């Protein structure tokens, strides 16, 4: 996964900015990148913000993607630019304490 690795406070700021970019245009909050705690590896304790080329090219409407919005480039610049993105192993986003079994036991 490609994206930014940030603190929890920065993650909250970025997600809030994404929300405001939509609501300031009088549209509902229908899209965000989300933030995901990093559980394993060198970035343990920080948060992952998905920002791959595919995510930044998500079709918001037929003719609009996130990278088209001026706020997007402002946020990306504030986070260090596209070159500041890192590769994060998807496994590191899985809580190692989460149960491995796929279904809950059946009762009654």
């Amino acid at each position, binding site marked *: 996964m490609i994206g930014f690795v940030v603190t929890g406070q920065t993650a909250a700021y970025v997600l809030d900015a994404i929300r405001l970019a939509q609501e300031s245009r009088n549209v509902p909050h229908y*899209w965000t990148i989300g933030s995901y705690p990093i559980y394993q590896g060198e970035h343990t304790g920080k948060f992952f913000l998905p920002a791959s080329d595919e995510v930044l090219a*998500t*079709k918001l409407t037929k003719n*609009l993607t996130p990278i088209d919005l001026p706020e997007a480039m402002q946020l990306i610049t504030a986070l260090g630019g596209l070159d500041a993105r890192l590769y994060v192993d*998807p496994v590191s*986003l899985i*809580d190692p304490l989460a149960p491995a079994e*796929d279904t809950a036991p059946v*009762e009654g």
Partner: protein
Amino acid sequence: MWDKLENQYVTNYPGEVVGTRVPIKYGTAQQASVLNHILGKDLYFYAESGCPTDPDGLAYIAAIEATGLGTVVTPVQKCAIHQFYISAKASGYYNLISRMPFPIWGAAAPNAICMKSLAVGTFTGGVTHGPGYVQGDGVTGHYKFNVNPQTLGLTGTNSSIWGISQPGLNAFGECLIGGEQSFAFINFTLYRRLSINTTAYLGNQAGSVATATHQHDFFGGTRVGTRITLHRRNNTNGHAIVATRISTSTNTAIPPFISALRREEQLGLGARYFTQQANLYGFGLGFTDQQMQDLSLHAKVLLETCTGVVLT
């Protein structure tokens, strides 16, 4: 007819622009669609007569078209959408639907809109918005409904959950739609997992009902009181109630959150992201078996008419 001001052809249904193609009024919406598929390079066929409309259908179509440039609902799609609302109300389950987005539009803004309430959820993380489907990346992508099902009247003994999708692949379970709180105790989910089972949990783990051998099909679980049923429909086998359970458990809570393309959860229980194409998902109050059977048919017709997706 030719619009002199704009130098383009338009139909009178209603003022639809067809550019340089010559519009010809012919037959029903379905007939026109077939001819356009075959002959639609220089000609554009549109329906001779309109189709019945529904006020909620009009509102949903308007909401879709208002999301931005390029999101156009075709006449064939409009007819299919109106027919869904008409059929749902005739079958008596329309008011039981709490949330049902129809994510076929190829973009996040229209895909986030609920057909019943026009409420808007939030697509989060890596989600592809393809023609006729959405598909999460399996690690971050999901859709938050942004509503507590409990506030909509759902309980562990009065709820339903459904969806149309390809099977999930993950051996540890992929959740098409659902939520879970306090592992194994407060569970409202629809799992789709290839070759193992599809499981609906309604109220608690006692709601587990399962079937095997998956295809691209509709699954819907419904619970009223202690009786839980899992319905399935595809084009190979038609409709069937594939599992029935009478729950004796007294633990009937339902979680206060729900997402699609993953199991919304807390306490690090494991989100169980969905990795395959999903065409439709929703939840509501408890349906009768006949109502869930009807929904499975109406949803199938809606999807297949509006998109190139065909259930197997």
